[in-house]
Each structure stands twice: as structure tokens, then as C-alpha cells.
């Protein structure tokens, strides 16, 4: 009763709206130019936000590099990269221990983590019935979200005493402990992404393989894995980036002693752990401080290279499939 004929009321209104929108009647700042201005402004705002991100990246790189290169005012290039003597109290700033440590730790982590996560991924995408798959995938996703300090703490209180008992060494800190902790950390990431990559292989590939009489193992090994190769590489590099940059968990189990690790159980140090251990104690304008910045820049460079590699692989993967 109140609104017996709604269409009758709306029709003139719509016409009115259309006219003001289209005709741009009289007034200087009417609805049309207002919309136009808003549109423009929103666009510029978005561009500014995007530019801001780029600016931050450039500024970070610039600051780290600018402070980092000051190291070479006092010590030579070769000293930093090829000397393993890091004793700031005696003006010795050899970074080799940490660079070597970072690469060794990453390699060891991948050595353990990649086969394991591939097996998990194959299990998830090939062998498991759908209902179990749907239950397992969220669990892996949850594992990704656990803060690294929790992993580090577990490493310190559970893993290290275990290593001490099993190997009979006195300490247990070292590359092995750090690599095991990192493995647990990167495992969910690598296996989830590999799982997606394997699942994305078209069903006709495996169907054809089975039709030709191949066993399940042959199908996985000769068809699925090669087809999902670029996706798996992508997962591995993401895991690698996390292993290189991880700080909190590593610092708790690596021992933090600036010496080259010639054994898996010898306390050593990596770029990230050394920076976080020392940065709060270092005088502002000292070679020591600059050397720490240089290490930060190196880390940044390594992870940037990895991201570039990931992008490249992604693009190649798209072209192939």
C-alpha cells in the first residue's frame, strides 16, 4: 500500500541521473567532472603506491650497498671474501666463514629437504584418496605459519640433546642441527608447491602412460616428475630462499663461532646469525659495522637472484605447457 507502483517513481529519477551524468549540465564541478577527477586521482594513487614499493626496494639496496662498501676503505676486497679470520677486536674482518656457512647450510638443507618433500608431494598427488588429501593439505599449510623462533626453541631443547646422545659429541650445535631445523621449516613449503605442480600435470599424460602398460613408479618417475619439473624447481628455490634468509631458528642451534665448519657437528656461523648476534653491540662508525652491512647486502643479493630465477622458471614453465 505504501509503495504501490515503485517503477513509476524510479523512472524519472533514472532519467534525471542519466542526464546529469551524460550532458554535463551548466555547473563547473558537476557529477561528471567529479567522477572524472576521482577516477584520475585513484589511478595516480595506485601508481604512487606501486612506485613507493619500488622506491623502498631501491633505497634499501642503496643504503646497504653504500654503507657496506665503506668496509673496503679499511680492508681489501680479497680480505673480506677470502679470509676466514673474523675477530673484530683485532681488526680482522674475514667474511669467508659466514659466506661458506650460508652456502653449506643451504646445500645441506636442500639435500635433506628436497627428496623428502618430493616424496610427500608424490604421495599427496598420486597415492592418496581425495578425502585424505583434503585433510592433509591444510595441515601442511598450517605448518608454514609456525613462527621460526618456535622451531629454533624446539631445536635447542629437543634436537640438540638428541644429537648429543646419538653422536656422542659434547655440544651438538652446528651445521647438522641447523640443517635439520631448516629442513622441518622448508618441508611444508616445498612439498605443497611441488604437490600443486604435480597435480597440475594433465590427467591424459598419466592415462596414456598407464595405457602403455607402465607401472605406477614408471609413470611418476618418467612422466609426472619431468612434466612438473619447472614447478618443482620453483618450489625448491622458494625453499632455498627461506633457508638462506632464516635467522632466528638458525642462531639458536648453530653455535655462533666464527670458524669454518670442517665437520657437521662443529659450531660455526652463517651470515644471518652473525649479523643478528653482533649488530646491537657494534659501534656505529666502525669497519665492523660496515662489514655487517656488507653481509646484509650479500644476503639481499642472493635472495634477489633467487627471485629472478623463480620468475624466469615460471615464464619458461608457461611457455612449455
Amino acid at each position, binding site marked *: 500500500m505504501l509503495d504501490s507502483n515503485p517503477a513509476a517513481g524510479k523512472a524519472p529519477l533514472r532519467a534525471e541521473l542519466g542526464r546529469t551524468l551524460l550532458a554535463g549540465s551548466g555547473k563547473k564541478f558537476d557529477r561528471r567532472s567529479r567522477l572524472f577527477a576521482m577516477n584520475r586521482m585513484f589511478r595516480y594513487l595506485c601508481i604512487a603506491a606501486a612506485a613507493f614499493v619500488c622506491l623502498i626496494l631501491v633505497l634499501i639496496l642503496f643504503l646497504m650497498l653504500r654503507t657496506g662498501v665503506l668496509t673496503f676503505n679499511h680492508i681489501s676486497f680479497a680480505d673480506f671474501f677470502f679470509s676466514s679470520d673474523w675477530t673484530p677486536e683485532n681488526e680482522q674482518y674475514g667474511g669467508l666463514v659466514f659466506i661458506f656457512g650460508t652456502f653449506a647450510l643451504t646445500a645441506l638443507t636442500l639435500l635433506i629437504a628436497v627428496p623428502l618433500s618430493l616424496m610427500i608431494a608424490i604421495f599427496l598427488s598420486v597415492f592418496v584418496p581425495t578425502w585424505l588429501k583434503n585433510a592433509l593439505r591444510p595441515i601442511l599449510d598450517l605448518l608454514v605459519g609456525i613462527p621460526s623462533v618456535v622451531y629454533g626453541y624446539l631445536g635447542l631443547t629437543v634436537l640438540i640433546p638428541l644429537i648429543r646422545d646419538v653422536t656422542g659429541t659434547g655440544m651438538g650445535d652446528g651445521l647438522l642441527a641447523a640443517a635439520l631445523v631448516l629442513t622441518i621449516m622448508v618441508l611444508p613449503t616445498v612439498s605443497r608447491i611441488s604437490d600443486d605442480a604435480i597435480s597440475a600435470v594433465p590427467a591424459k599424460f598419466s592415462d596414456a602412460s598407464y595405457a602403455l602398460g607402465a607401472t605406477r613408479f614408471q609413470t611418476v618417475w618418467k612422466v609426472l616428475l619431468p612434466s612438473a619439473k619447472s614447478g618443482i624447481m620453483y618450489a625448491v628455490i622458494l625453499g632455498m630462499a627461506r633457508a638462506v634468509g632464516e635467522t632466528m631458528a638458525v642462531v639458536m642451534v648453530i*653455535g*655462533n663461532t666464527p*670458524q669454518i665448519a670442517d665437520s657437521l657437528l662443529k659450531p660455526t656461523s652463517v651470515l644471518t646469525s652473525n649479523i643478528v*648476534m*653482533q649488530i*646491537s*653491540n657494534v659501534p656505529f662508525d666502525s669497519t665492523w659495522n660496515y662489514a655487517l652491512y656488507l653481509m646484509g647486502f650479500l644476503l639481499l643479493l642472493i635472495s634477489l637472484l633467487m627471485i629472478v630465477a623463480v620468475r624466469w622458471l615460471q615464464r619458461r614453465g608457461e611457455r612449455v605447457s
Partner: protein
Amino acid sequence: MKWFKQLTIAMLVAVIGFSSVTAVQAASKLSGKIVINGSSALLPLTLQAANEFKKLHPKVKISASAAGSITGPQAVRKGIAQIGAVDWDASKDVPGFKKFEGQVAHKVAVIPFAAVVNKNVTATNLTTKQLQGIFSGKIKNWKEVGGKDADIIVVNRTFGSGTRVNFQDKALQGTDFMTKGDNYKEVKTSGDMKSAIETTPNAIGYMDLAYVTDKMVAVKINDIAPTEANVINGKYKVWGYGYYMTKGEPTGATKEFIKYVQSTKFQNGSLKKLKFIPISAMK
């Protein structure tokens, strides 16, 4: 009901007037802003003092934060902070750190340090010579110092720690630490040191006496147990002063704050409760 309203208003006015009068009486004329930076070992003391001081002088704003000892005098030099808390006298050279020109050191507390070992270690009475040997890496097995046959695990603080500077100076009499070895590791904070000593069998390290728990053993040095009483009577030598550094002589609120921390009331009250030793006890 009119009389009721009037009475309420009158009472409100009276209460407000009275409270504002008392507030004015309590507020001292002292005002200003004090920023305190530096040693984390001294932070509990600084925070406690700041709370008490703010009650006496509500117009003074104090903000305190802590990182490594060295950040204290550095922040003072840069003008970021008025007071830099540090575990050694930063107006003099110490091993590894140059003196800060133009800064004045104010003693605020006595901090005793103790060498600590894991509970499974039986050699709990060491001489200065033995400590020097252990921390320089020359003595590698507990049986060399009267313990059982087991490797010594040495846990050290990173270079730059104020506790390390003091321990090296007072307990090791300036001899160098080892820098590498299979059974040597460095930790970042006193808390990390505590958990490392508690959980690692055959480990030795050192920390503020206040951090020592009953899950570890504080070692006797030259037959003297590390207790407050032994520090005060002069038998136990491994202790240092905590300092507040200022740029030149302090003025205004900063001066009053340091005076408050050094006052007998604070030194014998809150400071003792936080397990520091009053500076007056050492004279």
C-alpha cells in the same frame, strides 16, 4: 529536589577544587625529558628508578630502552639520549672499545659476576690460573682441574657484551678468550647463557650473579664463593660498576635523576631488591 542538585554540584566543585590543589602541591617545578639507552643488564634498575622518579616529578618525561652496552655511550655522543647505561667506564679505554671523549661516568650500582657450570660438573672450585686456561682453550678436559674425564664446553658471550668485558678484566685478569674450537660457542644474551649452561652437560660460562639459578652451580674462585657478602667484604674480586654516561656534567632533570638513583633511599631500597649491590657498600 533543587537542594539535592545544588548540594551535588557544590560537592563536585569542592572535590575537583581540592584534588587540583593537592595535584599542584605534589608537582615539583622540575620538568624536562630524559632518554636512557644502553645496557640491558642495568635496564631493570633504570625502569624502577624512572617509575619512582616520575611520581616525585610528574612533569619529567623519561623513556628508557636497552640493547648492547656500547649503544649507551654511542647514543649519548649522537645526542639521541641524555643518559647512556653501560657496564664499564666508557670514559676510559677497555679491551676492544675506545674511550668516549667528553663523557662523564656516574657509578650507579655494583654488579657481581659469577663463573657458572652445569650441574653435572664436579670441579666447582677453580683458581684464576685454571679459569684463564679454560677460557683460553689451553685446558680442554675437566680432569685437568680436578673433575671427571669429560671435555670442557666453553660458552662465551659475543664480543661487545659488557658482562664479557668485566669478566675478562676481573676474573681472567685481561687474558684473551679462545675464538674457535670444537667445544666452544657464543651466545647473545644473559638469558641465552642461562639456558645454554642449564641444558649442556660439562659446560662452563659466566653471568651476572642475579641471573644464577639453582639449576646451575656458581663456581668458587680461589676458594671464595660468589656471594654478596664476599663482594662487600672485599674477598670476591669479580664485580664491576654499572655506569650512567652523560655528555659533560649533567644538568636539570638528568642531574636530578642521577642524583635520585645514587641516593641512599633508592640504593638501599629498590636497588637491593633487584639484586644489585649499593655503591656505598664498596667504600
